[in-house]
């Protein structure tokens, strides 16, 4: 006899649990029981069988290329040359004196800092504002999310037209404010802002949605109690919302850092087709790796650059973890 609680959902669960104990009838049921028992008995085997193919695939398409890249970084490897000697750490020493790589690293770092700060600050502000118009928020989130699902290449091509110094709509719009024409993609000092602008536009919606989820999980009672105690909106933001959002903020900072540090497609598209519409050759780390690997065919050196990038991003993430640690000394995630 199953006692009824009055709650239809919990009653259903209880009936299901109870039915697990009762011996099922028929051949099919018997097979099911055997199967269930074998899972309980050989749990590890079933886990391996279930995850094995996924893990194998992961090893083939993720782990193996990483290990192979590390191996290549110790060789002078040109795909069309038969002689591929082991060069030890030469490729890494070369990194230290490579002006192009240094420029690319500096550019990428500057771009990444700007893009992360602007994107996340804007996303947080928009998410907070959207929380005050709860009913209309999904519509705005959807609108902001459209650029996220737009592939980088067509998005960058559209922005290339917008940035055109003579025929572009951006300069045309700015001219009404009395701002002189800017060579967005041609001026070596301006191009970084153009790329930041495109990147912020592209990724803002994603982080608005993430922050939106985080904000919705803050209990209303907390905010109402603070309001009753006389806390201003600013105080509620600083002392309740931001501390409660710390794990989400850490997540977004890490994800944004990884995304923006790997910037390539917008830079490539915005500065490509240099013959007709010239653009400044803005170097980024992934662009340098691409050029060394697939234009100069210095696969070994490109491998060393990739390993250096991996280490650099890992260090950045570790620094971010350290900065966001709570007072008890553990990562607040």
């Amino acid at each position, binding site marked *: 006899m199953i006692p009824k609680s009055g709650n239809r959902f919990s009653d259903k669960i209880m009936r299901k649990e109870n039915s697990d104990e009762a011996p099922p009838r028929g051949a099919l049921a018997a097979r099911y029981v055997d199967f269930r028992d074998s899972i309980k008995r050989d749990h590890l085997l079933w886990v391996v069988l279930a995850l094995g193919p996924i893990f194998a695939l992961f090893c083939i398409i993720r782990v193996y290329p990483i290990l192979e890249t590390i191996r290549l970084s110790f060789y002078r490897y040109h795909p*069309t*040359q038969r002689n591929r000697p082991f060069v030890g750490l030469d490729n890494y020493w070369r990194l230290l004196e490579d002006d192009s790589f240094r420029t690319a690293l500096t550019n990428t770092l500057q771009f990444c800092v700007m893009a992360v700060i602007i994107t996340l600050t804007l996303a947080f502000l928009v998410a907070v504002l959207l929380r005050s118009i709860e009913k209309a928020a999904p519509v705005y989130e959807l609108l902001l999310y459209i650029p996220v699902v737009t592939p980088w290449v067509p998005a960058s091509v559209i922005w290339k037209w917008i940035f055109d110094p003579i025929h572009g709509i951006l300069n045309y719009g700015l001219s009404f404010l009395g701002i002189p024409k800017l060579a967005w993609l041609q001026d070596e000092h301006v191009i970084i802002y153009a790329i930041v602008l495109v990147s912020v536009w592209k990724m803002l919606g994603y982080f608005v949605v993430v922050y939106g989820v985080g904000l919705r999980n803050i209990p209303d009672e907390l905010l109402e109690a603070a309001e009753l105690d006389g806390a201003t909106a600013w105080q509620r933001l600083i002392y309740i919302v931001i501390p409660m959002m710390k794990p989400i903020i850490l997540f977004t900072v890490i994800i944004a850092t990884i995304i923006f540090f790997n910037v390539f497609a917008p830079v490539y598209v915005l500065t490509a087709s240099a013959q007709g519409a010239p653009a400044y050759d803005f170097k980024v780390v992934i662009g340098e790796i691409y050029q060394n690997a697939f234009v*100069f065919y210095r696969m070994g050196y490109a491998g060393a650059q990739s390993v250096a990038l991996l280490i650099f991003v890992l260090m950045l993430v570790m620094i971010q973890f350290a900065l966001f640690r709570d007072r008890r000394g553990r990562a607040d995630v």
Partner: protein
Amino acid sequence: MLRRLLIAAACLLLSVQLGAAQNTVKGKISIWLGYPETLEAFKLGQVEFRKKYPNVEVEILTFELREFEAKLAVSVPAGSGPDILALHDFIFPRYYEGGNLAEMPADLAKDVNDPKIIDPVFRDVLTRDGKPWGMPWWSGRNGLFYNIDHLKAAGLDGPPKTYAEVWQYAEKLTQKNEKGELTRAGISLRLTGPSGGTQKFGYFYYQLAGEQMFEPGKKPGTVRVTIAQHIDAAARVLLDHVEHLHGPKKSDDWALKHDAQGFASGAAAMFMRESWVIPFVKKNGPDIKFGVVPVPHDKAWGAFNNLEILSVNKDSKLQAAAWDFIRILQDQAIVNNVLEGSGWVPIRHDRDYGAVLAKEPRFAEMTTPPAGLTLYIEAPNVAYEEMTTRVGEVIQNAFRDASLVGNLDGAKKVMMKAHETAVKILKDNGNYSE
């Protein structure tokens, strides 16, 4: 009489046998192209080829140039590349040195070695150990393109003939608006895209220095860097660029549309490029009245050429058929199609391009170089892309430096840096020549 009849019968039998042999050949020939504008010519060749080899399928794929180069670099050494390798001169050494090229049949090699058919400058690029390893097919030859209306409006009778006149004409042809912003370049210079930029900078350098910045070295595949030797010429060319990008002589700006697009849209009065520009401007700027002349000279007079080479993959299972396809591509109708359709210049002297020239006389400047004009070609080497890219970065960064205006010593320092950059890369790749 009987003897002659017997010989004729034997010849007939042999040709029938050969035809039968071709009919029995089965399989597939694959061709990859990085210059899709020549696809039409390959399709014409395909039709003729299928008549000879009805059982051989021909697959022709076109790719964006960089993608094409990357696919070749990965697939050919692995033994899975196309049967016919349409190689540009600067990627040719990769495949020769990689041992990926099949030996050339004697009849085609004889054509390559005949100076009446192929200019020796092209033969030398693809000859190793005394043997040619491919059939040079077409070249991109540069010239100076000028807008007839712009010149007329500026009171200029004709295009510039000397290096110095180029810059004087550029200043006269430049147009500015009331704010002083350039609305038309007197000459569209190559300001971005470092590898191509090095090449275009070299168009000027050659006329002043009398040789290229990177000349073939003592051994095939090696390179001699000449910038330090001609440092005055190199600095002069750099200064002329800088002074026409900044200050009162300013004749070009990064914000303007450039190259063939700029010229076809009327945003540039002059620029230097290869013959493919002729069909491009006719298509994209039908209202533009333009002419083309050989590049203006200084102490030397030389025209840059790049070269398309047809070779056969050593791993091809149908090498004989692939060479036959290359033979077919030498047909008059097909080389005419290359010239007319793509604007690239077929280089065989034993073909008559009159039919195309009657329709488009401007090609004559490219197909029939005037006496005294030297044809030169870059020194192919495995480090070509890296060297020209890095040198181009040095030069194009200097274009942006207004402090170099009137600063000859500064310009010399920049060009010495370009020299050292090239030497370092060549040494690193083991193909530097003193």
